[in-house]
């Protein structure tokens, strides 16, 4: 990836940090990631207890299975020479464990079925709220309302665009 321009007036490392947040995840140390993943899974236990009717042991088992899938996905990210983001590998692992035609699906899926996906999204968004840095606040102050309006149109555009194409194709192919 390109280095930040030498002619910049601002500290270059700010933007360089953003640039390197690109797709190469292979250098991330596995040990600390697994530790953080374990801590975050523990944080999810009381949140799941509020969100679902599951007993605490069932929640722990479900989260442990998801943890295992994430670990396998991280290992694949590191060792398979096909460059996909770790979240894509984790999705694929989860699909592979729950495909109904494969023998283990009947065992794995019931273990995670009760885990509430909305409640699982709470911790990442809390970390995201803390991760907003002075860089982001600076960009926000400099860009102003025009960029905000464009951003809203960009998000609405991708959503409505995909929904329109999906609706038409679903009707044409008779899948609905």
């Amino acid at each position, binding site marked *: 990836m390109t280095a930040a321009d030498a002619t910049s007036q601002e500290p270059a490392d700010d933007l360089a940090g953003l640039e390197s947040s690109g797709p190469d995840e292979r250098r991330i140390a596995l040990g600390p990631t697994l530790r953080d*993943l374990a801590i975050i899974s523990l944080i999810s236990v009381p949140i799941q207890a509020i969100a679902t009717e599951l007993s605490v042991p069932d929640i722990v088992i479900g989260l442990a299975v998801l943890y295992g899938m994430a670990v396998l996905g991280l290992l694949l990210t590191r060792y398979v020479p096909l460059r996909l983001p770790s979240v894509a590998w984790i999705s694929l692992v989860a699909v592979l464990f729950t495909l109904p035609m494969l023998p283990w699906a009947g065992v794995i899926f019931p273990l995670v079925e009760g885990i509430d996906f909305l409640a699982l999204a709470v911790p990442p968004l*809390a970390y995201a709220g803390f991760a907003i840095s002075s860089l*982001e606040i600076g960009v926000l102050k400099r860009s102003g309302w025009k960029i905000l309006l464009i951003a809203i149109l960009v998000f609405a555009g991708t959503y409505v665009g995909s929904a329109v194409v999906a609706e038409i*194709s679903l009707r044409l192919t008779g899948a609905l």
Partner: protein
Amino acid sequence: METARGLAQLWPLHLAVLIIGVVCQLIGVRAIPIGIGTILLLPMLFAFALALVLNPNVVRAATAIMPVRRAAAASPLIVVAIMPFIARFGADIGPGIELVIRSGPALLLQEIGNLGTILLAFPIAVWVLRMGRESIGAVHSIAREPNIAIIADRYGLRSPEGTGVLGVYVMGTLFGTFIFAVIASLLSTAGVFSVEALAMACGVGSGSMMAACSGALAAAEPGAAETITALAGSSNLLTYATGMYVSLFVALPLVEWMYRRARPEDPGSARGRTARREGAAR
């Protein structure tokens, strides 16, 4: 970068996330009826807002509870924290595989719909707001990390195109989940689209935006929750795999071409980086 960061420095951050998470889950889903539909506010949105208020970079007074350095440690934890969520989503694709395959053509085709960013935002950026080459960076994609990498690689982040992509990136980081929750709630209660189409559209290639989007859909139609997660999850997976290439080989050349047609007089529309830089003034 952060190889030897000890547990000791991180635990106040984890503790803060635990407290915020429990509080927000207790608040639960709140529905706000407005004229054209209902907006569903989810616990994850409250969690983001609450963490923002406690973030010393946003609210100066929060330094007392959370020093700036500690807040900075949160950044690499987002992707780790989203992993169990992604795994749970993937676990719904397996059992729903028949539905996913039946919807296969629609799933593939709706990836093209992601070019809707250009369709809707480009005319407003160029002709209404009179923006310059920032518009290229701003409208070519939803400006997540892979898209920033593409723009950084081609133009540099301090170019006008870089300013555009960073602007939308920051707005998306701050308001993206909220914007998606609002759009999805409104469209699901408006009754124009089927829930299957709306679910597929949620897979935009960002975990948290997909979460907010499919969460709002699932809260509006609890009976269809498994259909929603299976389709949103597979569409999102597809975007993870293809999004960067669509962005690089289709969206960016397309928006470059449109900009050259719309603004032939812009010095940046001729070739050469120096000319592009001078075209930056706005």
